[in-house]
């Protein structure tokens, strides 16, 4: 058990290193897209370690405790991620619903801490983050439930194995409509551009992060990198057929994240009411249609 725990923490650390590098490379790629040289690929590491080396102001114990809770919650979530078929800490506990619930612990920690800072912009940011989550989670859940209904399992590695066993029949091909919804939800989850309302520097000055500086901000950055790692690897496992070995995982991971950040570079930000309306209009409809034709009509490619 102890060994598995260490293994899990190792996965979280792997996720942190992986996502920070990929995000750094992506900053460089978007730099090139914007006609400039771009930062060093390891700039994100420098940023995080610099933040950890700074002194920080505290706004009360809720503020500090929330950050630790957020980081702890997210590391606990990342421990269950199956990276490849063999590279996972708890083989029988990678149920999708574990992620759906555990990831909320981290988010709630952050929300608690941000509200504890007392800055109205932070509260608005938290409110917007929760609203956005509510908006994209419902269509996403419909798609996931469809997949679970089709396969009869809710284990992430089980789903990945199912796709591999079916001769690489990935769900992104088998359920194209559902995959569109999942991509949109993933973009919202990662805080990519059209759905970036809860960061929105020009409106609410980075939202929940407004009062953080120094160590707390560094920890939140680590937490956000691991969150992104969880979300992208869930997508890789659910829709791209998982990975047999670490190399395939890296390729898929990089491809997904880069594609999303390229898309987000040419879009402006929605308003919060537009985000909610958007998700409850088309993606929800598409997700229900997908569920209907996949489950009742059985039209799965």
């Amino acid at each position, binding site marked *: 058990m102890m060994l598995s725990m260490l293994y899990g923490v190792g996965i979280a650390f792997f996720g942190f290193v992986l996502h920070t590098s990929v995000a750094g490379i992506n900053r460089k790629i978007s730099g090139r897209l914007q006609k400039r*040289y771009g930062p*060093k690929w390891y*700039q994100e590491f*420098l940023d995080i370690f*610099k933040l950890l080396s700074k002194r920080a*102001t505290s706004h009360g114990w809720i503020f500090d405790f929330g950050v630790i809770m957020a980081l702890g919650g997210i590391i606990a979530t990342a421990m269950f991620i199956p990276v490849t078929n063999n590279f996972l800490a708890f083989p029988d506990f990678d149920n999708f619903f574990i992620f759906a619930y555990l990831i909320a612990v981290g988010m709630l920690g952050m929300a608690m801490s941000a509200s504890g800072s007392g800055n109205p912009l932070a509260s608005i940011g938290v409110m917007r983050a929760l609203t956005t989550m509510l908006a994209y989670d419902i269509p996403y859940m419909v798609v996931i439930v469809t997949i679970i209904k089709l396969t009869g399992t809710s284990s992430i590695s089980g789903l990945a194995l199912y796709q591999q066993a079916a001769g690489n029949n990935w769900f992104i091909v088998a359920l194209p409509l559902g995959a569109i919804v999942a991509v949109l939800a993933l973009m919202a989850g990662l805080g990519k551009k059209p759905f970036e309302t809860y960061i929105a520097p020009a409106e609410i000055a*980075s939202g929940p*992060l407004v009062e*953080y*500086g120094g160590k707390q901000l560094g920890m939140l950055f680590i937490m956000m990198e691991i969150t992104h790692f969880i979300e992208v690897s869930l997508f890789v496992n659910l829709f791209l057929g998982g990975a047999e070995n670490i190399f395939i995982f890296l390729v898929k991971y990089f491809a997904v994240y880069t594609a999303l950040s390229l898309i987000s570079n040419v879009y402006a930000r929605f308003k919060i009411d537009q985000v909610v309306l958007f998700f409850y209009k088309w993606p929800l409809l598409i997700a229900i249609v997908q569920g209907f034709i996949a489950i009742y009509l059985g039209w799965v490619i």
Partner: protein
Amino acid sequence: MKSTKFSELSQEQVDRKWWEIGDFFRRNSLWMLMYCTGCCAIELPPAMTSAYDMERLGMGPMATPRQADILLVSGYLSLKTLRRLIYTYEQMSEPKYVVGLGSCTINGGIYHDSHAVINQLDQYVPVDVYVAGCMPNTEAVMNGFVDLMDAIKHKTANGWKKYRDNYDWYRQNQIASLGEVEVHDEFHE
């Protein structure tokens, strides 16, 4: 268990080593506060965007003072701005650095006889690097940042320590010029 090998390093030396490691990260990832206090801020967009691309040095604009490392005083400071600037400076988390752009921060520049603009910035907040010119070219601005990185490397950029140690002196100057440093809310009924 006591390790003889490491006990040779005193606590101070260990702190120093840690500080040097921290300095490496700090100088390679300088975040500056997006606060355009004066007209030299107009040369910042070229410095930040594609033409000179500040991000390749690891620098970037930040939304709030808590997250920022550099307070960029871009040009003249009217009294009204100075109140807010001091407020902002004190919010930033240490270590923090101040860069003064333009001749207005040095001696008042073209506004040396104006009734609303202060003449010498380092009476109120400590300044680590000055960039002269009215307004300084983008190259000069970038050079100023590189100078700041060197200063951090050689441990000479310690204005924030000065501010902490001589807080009373700075406070006294602020009060002498401003009368009242606190910002009052004009529209609050």
